């Protein structure tokens, strides 16, 4: 099993009353509420936390990016990836990921990622995402072409990484006279690509069609199992067997020295959930054309307050009860994680450990307790359940680089 540490890098020190007053903490919530002195402190604390995560035995550090919102301070995940490439020695640097549609020039991404891969001596996992709805608005990118841009940018980057240049690219959304980036990745044929997601069927299918592991982001156990069913059915169609080495799962898990402390800190996870529920703006989070057509009716009902969010989250107590949020002492957390691992059988797990206004000291304690007690127990569980990571299973990087394919037609549903 591959176990990663994750934090959204929250900037929780903005005045909460201003967010409540404005009614949303996204996109249009004024950056006059951002305090760069606090930002500087937090960025540096996050670096310390990542370094500790490596020291205590995490296999990877998962990074992401968002724009115009306090729930995530990373505006460019590649900057932290570059820092970690130099500051760490062993952990995989797992980008989940670079939002491809936001790139006006995907070749620049290919270059940056190649540099990170070389500096880290081949520790890059280059996940790609579509970017949230509001990210399209924050960066002025047309949401109606989000998926087309995602797929074309991916194809261009992979070609730039695997085919000798120079070549020309006359695509639908990207045109490049000369593709010939001098920096190419150390890992061959190219760094592993993992694809995270929440609710889009199309993304699950796309990942499986490319044989890229899919990382379910904080979904319920039932949603996760449905995602695996779809992934594995698609995998069978294109000729490989799905299973744990293609299944990743991000969970909110906080560990502390007492149950009380853990629960108090875990409540901070709901601070962030404002993005997806209370303090999100339904119109900004789902611009027309961004979502699957099948979700159109649900989203327009939500946007007028007629329906609940298709991304709705239940109350904190329900989330604790249903293992959506896991919190407690190492003993409690180990037992609950075992339940989740048995029910979902992932080969990759991301532990979203600290959020909101959890203090630096508590974050460091949490990471330390993970390393001392939780990770060894998870590895035992993984062994007992035969949950292998893509590295352990030595899976091919992608479908195109597979030599064991046995495609067979399977009715998807």
């Amino acid at each position: 099993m591959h176990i990663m540490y994750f934090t959204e890098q929250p900037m929780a020190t903005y005045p909460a009353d201003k967010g409540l007053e404005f009614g949303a903490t996204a996109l249009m919530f004024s950056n006059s509420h951002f305090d760069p002195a606090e930002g500087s402190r937090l960025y540096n604390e996050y670096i310390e936390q990542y370094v500790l995560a490596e020291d205590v035995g995490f296999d990877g550090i998962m990074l992401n990016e968002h724009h115009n919102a306090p729930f995530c301070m990373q505006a460019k995940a590649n900057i932290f990836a570059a820092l970690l490439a130099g500051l760490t020695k062993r952990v995989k640097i797992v980008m989940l990921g670079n939002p491809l549609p936001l790139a006006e020039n995907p070749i620049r991404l290919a270059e940056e990622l190649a540099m990170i891969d070389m500096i880290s001596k081949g520790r890059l996992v280059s996940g790609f995402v579509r970017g949230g709805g509001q990210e399209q608005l924050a960066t002025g990118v047309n949401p109606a072409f989000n998926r087309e841009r995602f797929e074309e940018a991916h194809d261009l980057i992979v070609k730039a990484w695997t085919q000798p240049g120079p070549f020309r690219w006359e695509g639908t959304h990207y045109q490049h006279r000369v593709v010939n980036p001098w920096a190419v990745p150390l890992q061959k044929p190219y760094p592993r690509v993992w694809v995270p997601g929440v609710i889009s069927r199309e993304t699950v299918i796309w990942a499986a069609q490319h044989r890229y592991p899919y990382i379910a982001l904080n979904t319920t156990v039932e949603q996760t199992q449905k995602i695996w069913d779809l992934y594995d059915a698609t995998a069978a169609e294109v000729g490989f067997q799905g299973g744990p080495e293609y299944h990743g799962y991000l969970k909110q898990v906080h560990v502390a020295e007492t149950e009380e402390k853990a629960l108090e800190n875990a409540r901070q996870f709901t601070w962030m959930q404002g993005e997806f529920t209370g303090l999100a703006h339904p119109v900004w989070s789902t611009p027309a054309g961004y979502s699957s057509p099948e979700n159109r009716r649900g989203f327009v009902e939500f946007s007028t307050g007629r329906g609940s969010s298709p991304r709705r989250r239940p109350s904190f107590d329900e989330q604790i009860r249903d293992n959506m949020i896991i919190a407690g002492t190492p003993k409690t957390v180990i037992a609950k994680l075992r339940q989740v691992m048995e029910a979902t059988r992932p080969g990759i797990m991301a532990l979203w450990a600290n959020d909101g206004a959890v203090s630096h000291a508590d974050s460091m304690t949490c990471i330390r307790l993970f390393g001392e007690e939780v990770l060894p127990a998870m590895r035992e569980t993984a062994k007992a359940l035969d949950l292998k990571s893509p590295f352990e299973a030595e899976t091919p990087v992608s479908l195109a680089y597979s030599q064991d394919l046995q495609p067979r037609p399977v009715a998807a549903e």
Partner: protein
Amino acid sequence: MAAPLAWQESHIPVAGLPLRLRRAGPRGAPPLLVLHRDSGTPDQLPIHAALAERYDLLLPEHPGYGQSERAPWMRHPRDLVAIYQGLLAALDIPRASLLGLGFGGWIAAEMASLAPRDFERLILVGPMGIKPPQGDILDQALVSHTDYARAGFHDQAAFAAVYGAEPSTDQLVEWDLCREMSFRLAWKPYMHSQTLPHLLGAIRAPALVVWGAEDKVVPISAADRFMAGLPGAKLAVVPDCGACVEMEKPAEFARLVTDFIG
């Protein structure tokens, strides 16, 4: 309320698209091609009935809006210009008048500039297509579908008369389809062209520019640009009225049209 207008509905193949067309009014009367807003068009409106009394009224639905099939290749409102020239050719109508509403006004202005000899009269109602010198065209990406539609009306009772106080979910879905297609056509620069101000000078059709004095969608400052680019055009500013003059003040608007076209 009067009996509903009996539209003749058909799908006319243009450039491989089955373009949805509603047609009403006496054949042989002066043809009037109505180019609808970015929010689509309701089927029954008092203004349709009023205009169908005097004109051969043609109300197509832009591809990707309402029930017209989306053309996934379209990238610019000028693509619609070609489609509508194709429609008029298919119907064998050599010289129509154009009535462009909001976003449809942009299309109409492009049509009249690209084919100056083809049009009898040009009427633009709160047209998009040109960057206003003061203020910006309202960005629908930042507001809900209903709020965007409401912004087109100064008197909210007039909005309710057309869409109901609480528009149906079917209406919201239709608006979302319209919005997606508008993004596909005019995302950046948003709802305007940097060349249209220059191309207006090619237009020969006599033009009437109509603006609601309380337009919250396209700032009325843009009227100056249209008037500067359209020599000899007339400007009619309708008081106590929002962007959707044809829906908010249909009787007054119908008089403006008939006075202008005849």
